[in-house]
């Protein structure tokens, strides 16, 4: 299709990496909300400060799904610090670019990662990521 998306986006959209749920994960993050039409949920397992496993579930458009997929791929096996350094721009670039109106999806992907790490830190150290606050609070939480 000659649609709005690059080939890379379409590849990740049609064949998303790391889809699914981790049972009893070390951290869960959820960002977005039904109003804007994108909800991303990420599950991580962490060992020795390294993200050993990551899964996502996304309700949203093509860009939302492919940025989720790309973001998980980019940080799987990386240290928490490296994962926290992931920017939405890097995700978009790795996908060969996004239409301007879809850039907010890459922001959500970045925030979903941070939110999962925040959750992990809260659970392990008692305090979350300093200063972290996703753009919009989800209206409902689907916590396990």
């Amino acid at each position, binding site marked *: 299709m000659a649609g709005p998306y690059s080939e890379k986006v379409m590849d990740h959209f049609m064949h998303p990496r790391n889809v699914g749920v981790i049972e009893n994960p070390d951290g869960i993050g959820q960002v977005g909300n039904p109003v804007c039409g994108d909800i991303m949920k990420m599950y991580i397992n962490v060992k020795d400060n390294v993200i050993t496993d990551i899964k996502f579930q996304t309700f949203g*458009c093509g860009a939302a799904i492919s940025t989720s997929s790309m973001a998980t791929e980019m940080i799987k096996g990386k240290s928490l610090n490296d994962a926290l350094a992931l920017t939405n721009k890097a995700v978009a670039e790795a996908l060969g670019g996004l239409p301007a109106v879809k850039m907010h999806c890459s922001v959500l992907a970045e925030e979903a990662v941070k939110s999962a790490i925040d959750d992990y830190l809260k659970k392990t150290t008692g305090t979350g990521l300093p200063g972290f606050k996703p753009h919009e609070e989800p209206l409902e939480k689907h916590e396990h």
Partner: protein
Amino acid sequence: MKRVYLDYAATTPTHPDVLAEMQPYFFLKFGNPSSIHQFGQEAKAAIETAREKTAKLIGASADEIVFTSGGTESDNFAIEGIAFANEKKGKHIITSKIEHHAVSECCEFLAKRGFTITHIPVDKFGLVDPEDVKKTITDKTILISIMHANNEIGTIEPIAEIAGIAKEKGVYFHTDAVQTAGHIPINKLNADLISFSAHKFYGPKGIGALYIKKGTRMVSFLHGGAQEKNRRASTENVPGIVGMGKACELAQNDMAIEKETILRDKLIKGLFDQIPEIVLNGHPTLRLPNNVNISIKHIEGESILINLDLMGIAASSGSACTSGSLDPSHVLMAIGLAHEVAHGSLRLTLGKYTTDDDIIYLLETLPPIVKKLRAMSPLK
């Protein structure tokens, strides 16, 4: 790959007979209808013939038809034309919450210029209650604009009743019939102004018409030359007008209401049989014969569309993602859908070239897509 077009409400192909009728007016009979010479007069004759055909589709007389550049211009012309000509009487306009943007944005423009707009709500089927309209009319009301049928959910509004109320109260009544003209019979509808767009019924893009009842007090929208009896300036789009006339003629002889209704209902039944947790948006029976609109819970519209497109199926959605805005369709919100349900809407609209096979193909193709996307979704 198989290509199945189920987006006839967005636009239709120009019928080959329509195109054939237009052809001579590009090069051989290319004159400007305002010119006094042969080249001009043969073009003028062609547009007058087209005007008669267009008028006939709605039982109007030819001089009540003004050609425009499409549905949007017709809507803007009707609303601003009445507003600017009658503002001495009052600056109040009544419309509904489910109008096309061509009506609602135009009202928005007027609201910034001192007009007051009342937006009548609709029920869960998308129906306007004529009583609500009646209650809202004041002595400052100059125009009521309620669409004939909604472009997203296909609900057909009780226009005759609303027009009757408007008439009784001496208020102009406009209806946007862009989705109904050429699809279901229209007989002036008792309206003062009716908007059409040719590309919605197998005519060319970029041409439309506004029915203006004789005696309607309004100003023109495009200012300039004396074309269209001073009602719409600009050199006439002769091939477009000729094409619109032909499309009206074809539609009059061949509205496929029964065929479309059968296919539509088969499609609705098939969807409900095969996909759990879906809802039908719009009215079950007061509905355009070619419109199906469902919400597929827990998944989002654009994802569905892209997956369908990769399988060769063209459809549309009221999801925000497909419009470039952040909000889902105002129509789906007006009928009371939750945001995430609105985002999961899918509109399938049928037409002249839709076959049984197309429906079968859609019903084979869609369920696995839904399954796949639901598996990815955090919602349940």
